[in-house]
C-alpha cells in the first residue's frame, strides 16, 4: 500500500468523478428528495392528509365530552368535532360517510356524570370503520373520567422491553418528516456507494485507465483511493442534507456509527460491482435492479409488517443501519441491540472487501 499514490488517486477522482453526470445524479436525486420531504411533509402524523378523524355529535345542551375526547386522542390523531341538530342527523352523516363517527349525548349528561350517575352515550360508527375510529371509541373512557372530574383509578407507566420492535410506531416516535428524511439519507449512502463509486471504477476498467494506474500503483491503492472518494462524497452530502433539513440527531455518535459503518460496507459492495461489470453504462442500466433489494429493507423499517418480515429485516445492512440511525436520531432505544446491528453491517463489509480483493488479484492470473 502506498499512501502517496492513494492520495493522488483520491484527489483525481474527487475532482474528476463529480463531472460525470451519472455520479452527479446519484448524489443529487436522494439529496433533492430529502429536501423535498423536509419542506412538504410534517412530523405530526395527525396533520397528514387522510389521518384526520371527524366526529359529529348531537346534544340538547352544552357538554364537555367532545372537547375532552379530542384532547385525549390529540397525541395520536386530530379529532375534529362538530355539533349537529339531532340524533338523526348524526346517523345520517355517519351513514353517508360525511363523518367517521357520531355521538348522541342525552340532556343533562355532564351533570349526571359528575353526580356519579351512569347516563347512556350512544356512539354511531359505520359498518367499515377504521382503526382510528375504534381508537377514538376506546379513548371514551378516559374522556368520561375527564368530564366527571375524577382521578384515574391507577397511574399508567409505559415501559419498553429489550426486544420490542417499533415497526408501525416509528412514524409516531420519530415524526413522519424526520423519518422520511432519514430514509433519504440511507438512500443517499446507497446511491453513492453502490452507484457512484462503482461507476467510477467501472469506467476506469472500461477505458483501460486502470491499467495505466496499476503500472505504478497496486490494485489495493486504487480500491482504497476510490473508497475514500465515496466516503468523502457521502460525508459532504449527508452534511448538506442534515444542515438543510435540520435533522439534528440526539446521539451523534450512534447516528454517525450507523451511517459510517453502512457507507464503508456498501462501498465495498459497490467496488465489487464496479470490478465485475465491464462498462459504466452496463452498470448504470442494471443499477435499478440491483439497488432495489438493498434499499427496500430501509424503507420497510417504518412500515408495520409481520414478525417474520421484521426478523428478516435484521439481516439486511440498510435496515439495520436505519434502525440504529433511528435510535441515534431520537436518542432513545426504539430498536434493540444497536451493537448487533453494527456488527451485521460490518460483516457484510468484510465479506465484500475480501471478495473484491480476491477478484482483482485474480485478474492478474
Amino acid at each position, binding site marked *: 500500500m502506498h499512501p*502517496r*499514490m492513494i492520495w*493522488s*488517486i483520491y484527489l*483525481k477522482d474527487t475532482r*474528476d468523478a463529480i*463531472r*460525470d453526470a451519472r455520479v452527479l445524479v446519484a448524489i443529487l436525486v436522494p439529496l433533492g428528495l430529502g429536501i423535498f420531504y423536509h419542506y412538504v411533509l410534517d412530523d405530526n402524523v395527525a396533520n397528514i392528509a387522510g389521518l384526520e378523524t371527524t366526529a359529529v355529535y348531537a346534544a340538547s345542551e352544552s357538554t364537555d365530552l367532545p372537547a375532552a375526547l379530542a384532547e385525549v386522542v390529540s397525541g395520536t390523531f386530530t379529532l375534529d368535532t362538530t355539533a349537529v341538530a339531532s340524533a338523526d342527523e348524526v346517523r345520517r352523516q355517519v351513514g353517508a360517510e360525511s363523518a367517521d363517527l357520531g355521538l348522541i349525548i342525552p340532556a343533562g349528561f355532564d351533570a349526571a356524570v359528575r353526580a356519579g350517575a351512569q347516563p347512556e352515550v350512544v356512539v354511531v360508527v359505520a359498518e367499515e370503520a377504521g382503526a382510528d375510529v375504534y381508537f377514538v371509541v376506546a379513548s371514551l373512557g378516559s374522556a368520561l373520567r375527564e368530564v366527571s372530574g375524577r382521578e384515574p383509578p391507577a397511574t399508567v407507566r409505559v415501559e419498553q422491553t429489550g426486544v420490542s420492535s417499533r415497526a408501525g410506531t416509528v412514524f409516531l416516535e420519530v415524526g413522519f418528516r424526520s423519518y422520511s428524511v432519514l430514509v433519504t439519507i440511507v438512500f443517499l449512502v446507497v446511491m453513492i456507494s453502490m452507484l457512484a463509486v462503482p461507476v467510477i471504477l467501472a469506467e476506469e476498467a472500461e*477505458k*483501460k*485507465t486502470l*491499467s*495505466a*494506474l*496499476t*503500472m*505504478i*500503483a497496486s490494485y489495493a491503492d486504487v480500491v482504497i483511493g476510490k473508497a475514500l472518494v465515496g466516503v468523502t462524497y457521502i460525508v459532504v452530502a449527508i452534511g448538506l442534507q442534515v444542515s438543510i433539513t435540520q435533522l439534528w440527531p440526539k446521539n451523534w455518535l450512534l447516528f454517525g456509527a450507523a451511517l459510517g459503518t453502512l457507507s464503508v460496507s456498501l462501498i465495498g459492495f459497490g467496488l465489487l460491482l464496479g470490478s465485475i461489470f465491464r462498462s459504466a453504462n452496463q452498470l448504470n442500466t442494471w443499477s435499478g435492479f440491483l439497488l432495489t433489494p438493498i434499499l427496500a429493507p430501509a424503507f420497510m423499517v417504518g412500515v408495520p409488517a409481520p414478525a417474520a418480515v421484521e426478523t428478516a429485516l435484521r439481516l439486511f445492512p440498510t435496515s439495520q443501519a436505519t434502525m440504529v440511525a433511528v435510535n441515534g436520531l431520537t436518542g432513545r432505544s426504539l430498536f434493540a441491540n444497536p451493537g448487533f446491528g453494527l456488527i451485521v453491517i460490518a460483516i457484510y463489509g468484510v465479506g465484500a472487501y475480501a471478495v473484491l480483493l480476491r477478484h482483482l488479484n485474480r485478474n*492478474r*492470473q
Partner: protein
Amino acid sequence: MLASEPRLDLTRPQLEDDTARPAMIEVRDLSKSYGDVRAVAGISFSVASGEIFGLLGHNGAGKTTTIQMLTGRIQASGGGARVAGFDIATERERIKPLINLVFEEQNLYERMNGRDNLRLFADLYAAPRERADQLLELVGLTSAAKRKVKGYSTGMKQRLLIARALINKPVVLFLDEPTRGLDPASARDLRRLIARLSAEGTTIFLTTHLMEEADDLCHRVAFLGQGKLVALDTPRELKLRYGERTAVVLLRSREEHTLRLQDAEDAARLATWMRDGEVLTVHSQEGTLEDVFIALAGQPL
C-alpha cells in the same frame, strides 16, 4: 507534431550497481496459458541496454501477452524474465518505477485536460510536476495543455500517451503499436523520438504491425507465430536469410524484367543480356520484412 528540437532533459537517474547490466530484458522459456490455449509457448531472448527491439506477429500471436508479462500486468505460467535487472515474478514492485508502457488503447482521462493527465502520473511516480509541462512541449501539446482530452484528435492523444510514458524517465519503455492512428508526419516524428531515446540509453521494446516501421527503427526484431519465437535477428540478416533478393532489369527495348538472384536460370539470362549490351539499368532489391514473415508464417501480416 512532435517538437523538432529537444527541450527535455531525458537523462535518466543512475541505476544501482546491481541493475547496470548490458541486458535490460532477459527472457527465458517464458510461457502463458489460458486453460488449454497456449498464448505464449516458451520464448527466450534478451534485449540489450539502449536497444530498440521489435516484436512482430499476427493478431493473437502473443505480442501483447508478452508485453503484459514483462510489465507485470499478468503472471507467467512458466519460465521467467528479468527486466531492468529484476525478476518479473518476485521483484515486480522494484521494476515498476523503472519501466513504462505506451498502451495500444488510448487510455487517457478524457474529462481532464492534458496537463492534469500528466500531473496525475507525475504525482504517482513522485516526479516533479514541472516535468508535465516539459513533456507537453516535447510532444508539441503545450498550446492544448488546458484543453480537455476529450477534444483531442487521435494523433494528439497518441502524443499525450507517449508523454505520459516518459513521465518517470523509464529505463525500459514498452510500446504497443505506438504509431497507430498517427498521420505519416507525426509517425515519423515519433520514430525520431524513439530513436533519440534509444541513443540516450533507453531500452525500447515495441510491437507493431508496420513492417517498414520495424525495419527503419529496430536494431533487432523477433517474429512470433502461434506463441512461439520463429525468428530473431537484425532486419537486414532476416531479409537476407529469408527474403527473396531480386533485380529489376530495364532493357534497351524498354522491357522490364524482375529476376530472382538466387535462381540459376535468371542469373544466366542476366549474364546473356549483359554480354549482349541489352541492359539499360539494373536495380537490385533485397527482401522485405513482410516477405520474411510470409516465408516464416506462411501468410501475410
